[in-house]
């Protein structure tokens, strides 16, 4: 009895294979946010589709002659609203200009406005958001109210006012300043939220404890962490800025008829909608596909950088 009541110990059979529970994959590369995101995003076909579209659009804006040898400014009224023919795949506008050539040459202006407006908006947004989030206190209150003010004016309407005031100076730069100078408020909000989150992190405290100045810490440790959300917002703003350029051209405060851009092409074609709808639809397709590519890219980057969104899929 006494020998039976002894607690029996379970002894694993010798032939049982050992299961390593707490094994750390020593051979695996250390993972971080960016490498995880890259591993995730490169497996998605929509990412590669967007990238190919973006590369084609960039090539078109830098080297339009790679895509067409037709001079977009040589228009011949004999071909007014002409059908597609050899060497002129998309036909002719009302003015007798080659639609395809004008779309290709218009890419540069549309993309420039998109890029410049985004850079301007992102830089202002980054500075305002980072300062507001990092220093806090009254500076945060003031900068956030300033952001609210800019946020309360729809940026296209603000750009309408700016472009009306600067009617004599309508060029890519003023248009980009008009769009970017009023579109930064949402970027600032995103950056501020991210900086507020990062500010509490141990490495920021450590940096300051080690004697680094506030500004030095901000640049060295806080900015790099705000890059991820900034990248997403910027990609989406780029898409919005390209649409804004077209919308302002339609409203009559864009770059003017002598400049070739997608916006002016679509805007000029509107009077011919009944006769030659394709002169409106073709540039619109190019614009839409480009904008779509940037939006998809922005959203894919956002999803890839967000571990929670990755896990949900």
């Amino acid at each position: 009895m006494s020998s039976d009541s002894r607690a029996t110990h379970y002894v694993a059979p010798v032939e049982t294979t050992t299961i390593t529970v707490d094994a750390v994959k020593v051979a695996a590369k250390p993972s971080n946010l960016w490498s995880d995101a890259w591993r995730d995003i490169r497996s998605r076909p929509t990412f590669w589709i967007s990238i190919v579209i973006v590369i084609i659009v960039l090539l078109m804006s830098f080297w339009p002659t790679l895509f067409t040898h037709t001079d977009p400014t040589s228009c011949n009224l004999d071909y007014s609203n002409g059908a597609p023919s050899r060497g002129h795949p998309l036909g002719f506008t009302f003015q007798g200009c080659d639609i395809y050539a004008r779309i290709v040459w218009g890419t540069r202006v549309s993309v420039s406005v998109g890029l410049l407006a985004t850079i301007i908006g992102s830089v202002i947004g980054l500075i305002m958001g980072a300062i507001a989030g990092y220093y806090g206190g009254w500076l945060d209150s003031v900068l956030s109210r300033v952001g609210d003010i800019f946020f309360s004016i729809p940026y296209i309407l603000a750009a309408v006012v700016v472009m009306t005031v600067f009617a004599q100076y309508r060029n890519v730069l003023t248009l980009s300043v008009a769009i970017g100078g009023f579109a930064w408020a949402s970027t600032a909000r995103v950056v501020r939220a991210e900086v507020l989150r990062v500010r509490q992190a141990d490495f920021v405290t450590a940096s300051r404890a080690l004697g680094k100045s506030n500004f030095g810490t901000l640049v060295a440790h806080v900015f790099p962490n705000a890059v991820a959300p900034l990248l997403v917002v910027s990609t989406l703003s780029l898409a919005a800025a390209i649409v804004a350029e077209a919308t302002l051209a339609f409203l009559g405060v864009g770059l003017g008829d002598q400049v070739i851009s997608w916006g002016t092409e679509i805007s000029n074609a509107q009077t011919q909608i009944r006769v030659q709808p394709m002169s409106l639809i073709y540039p619109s397709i190019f614009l839409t596909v480009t904008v779509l590519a940037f939006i998809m890219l922005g959203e894919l980057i956002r999803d890839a950088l967000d571990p929670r969104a990755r896990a949900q899929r």
Partner: protein
Amino acid sequence: MFAYIVRRLLQLIPVFIGATLLIYFLVFAMPGDPIAALFGDKQPTPELLAELRAQYHLDQPFLVQYWYYLTGIFRGDLGTTFSGQSVNDVLARTLPVTARLAVMSIAIEFVLSIVIGTISALRKGKFFDNAALIVGLVFLSVPVFVLGFVAQYFLAIKLGWFKATVGADNGWNGLWLPAIVLGVSLFATSMRLMRGSVIETRNQDWVRTAYSKGLSRGRVLPVHVMRNSLIPMITNSATNFGVLLVGATVTEAVFNIPGVGNTLFQATRQHEGPTIVSFVTVFVILYVLVNLLVDLLYGLLDPRIRYVK
């Protein structure tokens, strides 16, 4: 609740003053002759110049000028248009039209978003979900005026389902095509918010409780899931109200609807500075008020928001 309303109204004041000051500053404090800048490409007569200078108190310091302008707005005087009409009169005529268009397009946006968003959420990852996502992205990428022209060409001119332009026929029935265009251009974001929100709500405890006490899917889905999923969509349409205003401007221009937006569009086409400023200010006021209204509604719906400092 009263304290909450007062607090929100107080927060509104700096934003409103700042926004009007900014617009005013842009137009009137820039280097060069502000009146000449207002005219853009046109050449004003000396008499008109002198009259406009007096009207805008240009002989006085900038802030005094702005003070006249601001007190005018608070007295309900929104200024005069380029052609000398009172902005108030123009608004009285055009605002109801724009309001009809806005209400119809928001209704279309919400119906589309709720129906498509919910179905997408229930079939997450299936064909319908992916198709809705892609269609939504395309509508998100097309500029509204292009959507308007394409709809006008195919649905009105080619198929003859609608009239190509609205003009005087701007009652509820005449505005269907522009409202559809505007609603469809807005729906993508709301639809995706609705989808995400339904997916999240379906996993909540109270939904499981509702099912486990024997309620049917036909009751749980609308009452427990969808109703609780509406909030992100409604918030978004408030912050997106600026996009709606710009969209309304463009849609009204395409379909020649005599609304506020079209007045602004005609003014920009003619480079009529004072009119542009007045109507952009009107839009900013509308935008700020709508956001206030939505915030107050939230305070009413969700007690937590009221007590947060």
